[in-house]
């Protein structure tokens, strides 16, 4: 029996798992997918918001304000890319200037430092590519960009290294409460746990309803994005938002932590929680909206479009509390934007709740907050590259030419705790296939390396989910697994 079981290995679940691994607790982290960070965490704007947006009276407002300054330490400890580049909220009408002032005042009430209302000239000094018609902006110094799935993966890895058990492909089908805990039925058997944390994202309402009275609903809200090639780098220097209006929150244009440019998202209410389609109409709308902020966005550099789904709670605010009718069951639900920005504070909050209901948690003196840094070959100097290849020749084999990712890096991310098992899993950890060729050249090699390292046939390797098979079988007359043999030759180097 586990002390604590966390359902959902997105950013919230992974953060909670890592924070709980500081204590002498048996913790299980469950996810229905075959990798962590495979839901909302892998498809969002990747922003660490300054925190002026959500109202001072909301849980979101408080936790965003608390969470933002916590990123530096955790990203440093876990070697996750974070850049504090600041953000701007642009206004295009004089009538919007009071809204800007309200955001400023709300931010000040939340104690957010580094806020400033800028004139059009001051705004243009920061962002030369803004449209001519801007009337002013709200600058927020503490806003940043981060790799959300990289953070979630790093948190999961660190949690595992500190004793947490990760159980993938465990979809929860039922939860029964008994006298001193819960029996969680999953697609891979039962898990018993004293406490349960519901961090199930888009399905948090369904999980709650398995064991407690329904009191909220999750409404899926889709957002679509463009992601531009690194050639577009320099288009914007900060996260550029638009002043919220009755029509909506507008779209953002921002650098990503890896030097791409992201444009989006729109907001569209859906019925289907799985509907991550992009659509021609909505992408056109995103383009039209973004054109209100930034001149001449180079969409000919587009490398991919994608959609993410937000878990909008019917309560309009984060739900972070022990269930009233299922004691020991803690909801971490409705974690929409600014969920990523709030996640360090959400985890802290959950630890406090658990500490209270468990009557104190005992710290584990062996907890190590650090993980072994990743070898990021592309970021090394020529001398460092030379030294690394001398030390380990696998770093001398480039697998992904667009992002200059080496076989050495792939082997590392496959063999770590919370290691990659799929092509997209490798991509989220080491970035092959995130560049302009979108895996055209490297995907055969990534598949071959995964198959070799995992000891399976190439046709067993999935793109992402367990059902996302890539190869359908051998060609006529091909019997000897040529690629595997060649792979083994490389392995003996």
């Amino acid at each position, binding site marked *: 029996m586990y002390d604590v079981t966390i359902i959902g290995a997105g950013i919230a679940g992974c953060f909670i798992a890592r924070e709980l691994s500081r204590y002498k607790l048996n913790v299980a982290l469950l996810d229905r997918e075959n990798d962590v960070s495979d839901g909302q965490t892998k498809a969002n704007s990747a922003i660490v918001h300054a925190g002026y947006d959500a109202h001072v009276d909301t849980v979101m407002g408080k936790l965003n304000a608390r969470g933002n300054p916590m990123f530096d330490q955790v990203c440093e400890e876990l070697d996750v890319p974070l850049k504090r580049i600041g953000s701007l909220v642009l206004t295009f009408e004089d009538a919007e200037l009071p809204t800007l002032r309200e955001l400023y005042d709300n931010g000040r009430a939340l104690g957010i430092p580094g806020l400033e209302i800028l004139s059009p000239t001051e705004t243009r000094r920061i962002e030369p590519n803004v449209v001519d018609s801007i009337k002013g902006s709200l600058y927020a110094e503490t806003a940043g960009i981060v790799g959300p799935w990289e953070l979630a993966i790093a948190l999961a890895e660190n949690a595992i290294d500190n004793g947490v058990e990760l159980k993938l492909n465990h979809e929860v089908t039922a939860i029964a409460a008994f006298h001193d805990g819960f029996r969680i039925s999953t697609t891979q058997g039962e898990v018993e746990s004293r406490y349960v944390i519901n961090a199930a994202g888009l399905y948090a309402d369904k999980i709650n309803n398995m064991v407690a009275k329904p009191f909220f609903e999750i409404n899926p809200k889709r957002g679509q994005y*463009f*992601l531009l090639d690194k050639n577009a780098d320099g288009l914007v220097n900060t996260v550029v938002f638009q002043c919220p209006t009755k029509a909506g929150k507008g779209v953002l244009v921002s650098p990503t932590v890896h030097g791409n440019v992201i444009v989006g998202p729109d907001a569209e209410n859906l019925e289907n929680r*799985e509907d*991550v*389609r*992009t*659509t*021609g109409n909505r*992408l056109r709308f995103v383009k039209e909206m973004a054109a209100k902020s930034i001149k001449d966005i180079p969409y000919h550099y*587009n*490398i*991919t*479009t*994608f959609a993410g789904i937000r878990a909008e709670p019917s309560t309009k605010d984060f739900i972070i509390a022990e269930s009233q009718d299922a004691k020991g069951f803690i909801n971490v639900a409705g974690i929409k934007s600014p969920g990523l920005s709030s996640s360090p504070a959400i985890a802290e909050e959950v630890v406090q709740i658990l500490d209270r209901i468990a009557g104190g948690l005992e710290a584990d003196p062996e907890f190590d907050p650090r993980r072994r840094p990743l070898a990021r070959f592309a970021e090394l100097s*020529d001398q460092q*590259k*030379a030294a690394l*290849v*001398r030390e380990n*020749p*696998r*770093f*001398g*084999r*480039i697998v992904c*030419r*667009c992002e*200059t990712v080496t076989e050495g890096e792939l082997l590392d991310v496959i063999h770590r705790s919370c290691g990659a098992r799929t092509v997209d899993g490798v991509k989220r950890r080491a970035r092959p296939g995130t560049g*302009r*060729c*979108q*895996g*055209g*050249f490297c*995907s*055969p090699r990534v598949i*071959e390396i995964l198959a070799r390292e995992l000891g399976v046939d*190439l*046709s067993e390797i*999935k*793109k*992402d*989910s*367990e*059902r*996302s*098979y*890539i*190869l*359908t*079988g*051998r*060609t006529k007359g*091909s019997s000897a*697994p*040529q*690629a595997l043999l*060649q792979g083994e030759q*490389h392995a003996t*180097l």
Partner: protein
Amino acid sequence: MQHYDVVVLGAGPAGLGAAVEAHKNGARNVLVLERDRELGGILQQCIHNGFGLHFFSEDLTGPEYAERFIDELQELGIEFKLNTMVLELTEGKVVKAINTTEGYLEIPARAVVLAMGCRERTRGAIAIPGYRPAGVFNAGTAQRFLNMEGYMVGKRVVILGSGDIGLIMARRMTLEGAEVLAVAEIMPHSGGLTRNIVQCLEDYDIPLYLKHTVVDVQGRDRVTGVTIAEVDDRTQPIMGTEKHYDCDTLLLSVGLIPENELSRGAGVKIDPATNGPVVNEAMETSIEGIFACGNVVHVHDLADWVTEESQRAGKYAARYVQEQLVEEGKMFETRPGNGIGYIVPHYVRVSNLDEQLPLYMRVREVFEGKRLVVKADGEVIKRVKRRHMAPGEMEIVKIDSDKLRERPIAELAVSVEEE
């Protein structure tokens, strides 16, 4: 660190042709760097025939065509390194590369030949709507899986784009037992060779829908269906014209893009019309001593023409290292006129020409019964009749060098004109 006369980046048809020719023309230390496991580049996965018809007057497969040059390279004792990735080329012609056996390398070169080829335009670049499941492949990637790795990528297939690789893969997938349901092409004409339309689609009763594109991809995990629709003259989908296919695979053959990241890094000037380096008659880029040839310069329709162009690049690179290339002197510009998309080379220094100046170009649209007219400063110096011209097929016009030497020329223009 060893110095080389000529370092060739890439061992596809362009790199092989250039290296062999540079050696034959007197360059002594020639080095070829190849990122893949073997020489030959993409030719190794092109197991279909149709290569060498012009160059060897024989009908060869891709690997056979490559083998001719690989044999020659080895007979000449030209040095090459496999599994070697060039990380950077400096303006001063230092090539930075790595491999597993020698580690990190900095190779100074007197001349460099860029022969990195091209990559496929992706789904993202054209923002195809729908889910993003497994089962969406670039045609060239699928070709590699089938022909190099020995794996099939799907059973029921829709192909978007009628570029040559897509057409070839329509036939290849059919021969492997897959059902190819349709090829959709957004333009009113195919982007591929006529012979491939006939031999790869018509012979197998695979329908080609011109002015159609993919408007939806279904399937959260693996492709379960694809919807195509007709487009209007502004390439926007027309409501009500949708056709749905239940399938597990979507192949994309929607264009090739010269791979010039290294060229850009070195500061080589790029022509936005070709996405490749601006070159002169010697296939020399805007940086003296850096040459370029093949699909890195502009996308060719046939490997034979890549070879022809690359041999010129190799020959001139050898002349350059022997200080026989005239860098100064009379120069004129080429200009694409009416109906012409681009012309390679962009500049011509008359002193370096041999007997003929070959002009490589592509037309913008399909033309029937027209003429290509070459004018030197407005005066017609050559007219050639063409029964049929299409953007999918490269046009070559060769000009006698004597005609260009008669008097100083500022501009050489080519246009499509009425018979």
